[in-house]
């Protein structure tokens, strides 16, 4: 069957959310496993902050929190 467009959108949202709020950085090159671990760490960091079950993977509840309207306070370290 066709690939769900929703899944694609969610994937983009997860990446953009983690980049914006958890300083997820792009890791290029052959170390794809490292990238997955890095992303998983960022997801776990977000889940810990919001009191969600820390799994390091995006479940429905984690996705719901990511979709909530929120403040986008810029990274103060980056600014300074």
């Amino acid at each position, binding site marked *: 069957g066709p690939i769900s467009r929703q899944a694609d959108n969610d994937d983009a949202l997860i990446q953009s959310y983690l980049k914006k*709020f958890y300083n997820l950085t792009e890791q290029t090159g052959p170390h794809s496993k490292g990238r997955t671990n890095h992303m998983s760490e960022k997801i776990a960091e977000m889940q810990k902050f919001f*009191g969600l079950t820390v799994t390091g993977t995006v479940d429905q*509840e984690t996705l719901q929190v990511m979709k909530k*309207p929120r*403040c*986008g*306070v810029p990274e*103060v370290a980056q600014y300074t």
Partner: protein
Amino acid sequence: TFGEGLKWPKNQLTYRIVNYTPDLSQAEVDSVLGKALQVWARVTPLKFTRISSGDADIMISFGAGSHGDYYPFDGPGGTLAHAFAPSAGIGGDAHFDEDELFTSSSTKGYLLFLVAAHEFGHSLGLSHSSDPGALMYPTYSYRDPNTFVLPRDDVNGIQSLYGPNTDVNPDKPAPPPPVTPDACDPSLVLDAVSTLRGEKIFFKNSFFWRISGSGQAEQHLIKSFWTDAPDNIDAAYENTAQDKLYLIKDQKVWALFGYDLVQGYPKSLSSLGLPTKVKKISAALYDKNTRKTLFFTDNYYYSYDESRKVMDKGYPKLVEQGFPGVTGKITAAFQYNGLTYLYSGNRVFEYSPTSKKVTRVLSNSYLLPC
């Protein structure tokens, strides 16, 4: 806080409203932003003066998409606003996403008061809080701006930077800052407990915990799920046959279907079949096997037959009469996995309707993990 002692080195700060949103009148924006700053001024020695030209410590503006600070907004939803920590130049400035619908009182759109008060927290040196009741929690949730009192976590944060406000009128003490209930508090007495579409939910003050499949308790503001629902409820029950959650407070009942208030609610307590002399309910539960709803008034309870839509005869009865072994006033009640749980303060009686016996006396933390 942001750490590294990031705060303003002075208590007299200036702000300037650089432009306006078309969502509200200019007078409304002026008033709302002034009130949002006062949230912080009330609990600290900080004083805010508005200027209309030149550089202010806190420059306030509305903009959409890229708006000149390398942190572009993202259209409707998502990020609502952002603000910079105290510093010279852009430091302290607050930017609001013009693609959002800002309101001053309606529950549609986002209350500019709440968004601005949150952003000004950043402007003054507060980072995000992980306390879901705090104003500085990163996600937006509606609360009544007319009764808003800065929560304890935010007061602690801002006073750690600037100290308390010493200029308070002793004849007019401020309302105490609300504290987020703690599931680990052994003296916690819940307002109400219910099931909701297979989950367990526990109410306390303006909050509830939900325990879903994973077994972990998540804490939320009641209003973040149900804008129209009351805080500090007396009782709650789920009628699984109707797929509705009923919340009772004083002499009113609210029926909720999903996230929505059922049309025609809130209704009077007597609409549930209770005699008009009943002015307060302390707990309620729906028994899906007998299709009866039990309403507790401390040591007594009424039984309403949902099939026949009448109150059963011979009630109210003493709780001990219907539930041998259960003592004390009932403060919360629900049924789960075929067992009845009756709360009396921080004790929970587990009662088996089949054996008609108390099977265990538990503590709060058995059902609501710390």
